[in-house]
């Protein structure tokens, strides 16, 4: 009597075969590179923010006489906060990519199913994180365009 294949048999599931393993491994390598570079990039942004704040403080009262610009130190502080925020955002996203890279590489090397799942969860978080940030950026862009158009700024 012919037996029906069980749903859990290899015929009914996707496996990490040689081709998949090679592709995943190279994707994980690039994700690790991206993660490390992103962390460096974020640290550079934070450094630039601190540098800009120091530079603006050293410029002294050049802008203080212009009542609409505010003090140079306040501008420097605002710039520093923005750069630090960008740097932290970049670093957090890069940590997700690095997590994917490390876990998938480990999973393929040790044949660990749990680590593979955790690796996929890492890249899922990476995409979710950047999607939310991009949506926020898009909303800010739309609000900016609408505000600019309504106030006649672009004339």
């Amino acid at each position, binding site marked *: 009597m012919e037996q029906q294949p069980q749903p859990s048999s290899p015929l009914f599931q*996707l496996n990490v075969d040689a081709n998949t393993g090679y592709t995943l491994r190279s994707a994980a390598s690039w994700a690790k590179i991206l993660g490390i570079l992103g962390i460096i990039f974020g640290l550079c942004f934070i450094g630039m923010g601190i540098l800009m704040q120091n530079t603006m403080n050293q410029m002294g009262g050049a802008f203080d006489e212009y009542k609409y610009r505010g003090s140079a130190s306040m501008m420097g502080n605002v710039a520093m906060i923005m750069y630090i925020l960008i740097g932290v955002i970049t670093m957090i996203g890069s940590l997700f990519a690095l997590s994917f890279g490390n876990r998938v590489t480990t999973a393929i090397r040790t044949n660990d199913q749990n680590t593979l*799942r955790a690796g996929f969860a890492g890249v899922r978080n990476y995409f979710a994180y950047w999607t939310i940030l991009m949506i926020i950026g898009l909303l800010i862009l739309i609000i900016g365009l609408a505000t600019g158009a309504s106030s006649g700024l672009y004339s």
Partner: protein
Amino acid sequence: MQTDSHSPAIFELRIDETAKHHLLTMASWGLIIGIVAIIKYILSVIEYIQTRNRVNYQFGDITVSTERNNLGGMIFTISIGLLVNYFLYQFSSLTKRGITNLSQVDLNRGFASLRTYFAIIGVLIIIALCLGTLGILMSGMNLTN
């Protein structure tokens, strides 16, 4: 349904239900990124067309007027963005198709697109870091001269 891969599962790792769920979620988020990016590019083009010749910046009762001439930069940025998002879309659609149809080939192609996506972004960051370093070095040399 039989998978269309003839090579054995050498690594004994499976794309189980949890991994499938993660992959489908990743693919959905990736697709949303692509859509949001295209909307942003369209809005950028509209903004450029509206402010093509002149932009007025208002500071209280003072108006500063400047000319905008960054068409090349915008085209370059949008081109790079479309290239990156093309591979992201490929990853999203192929991975979904691979999981839905239990197709190992489509899943492998999806992972290959994901690899290319990470590679392009990595290369762009390397270029940005090199240009930033060059800029800092050149500005430092200008200050000392």
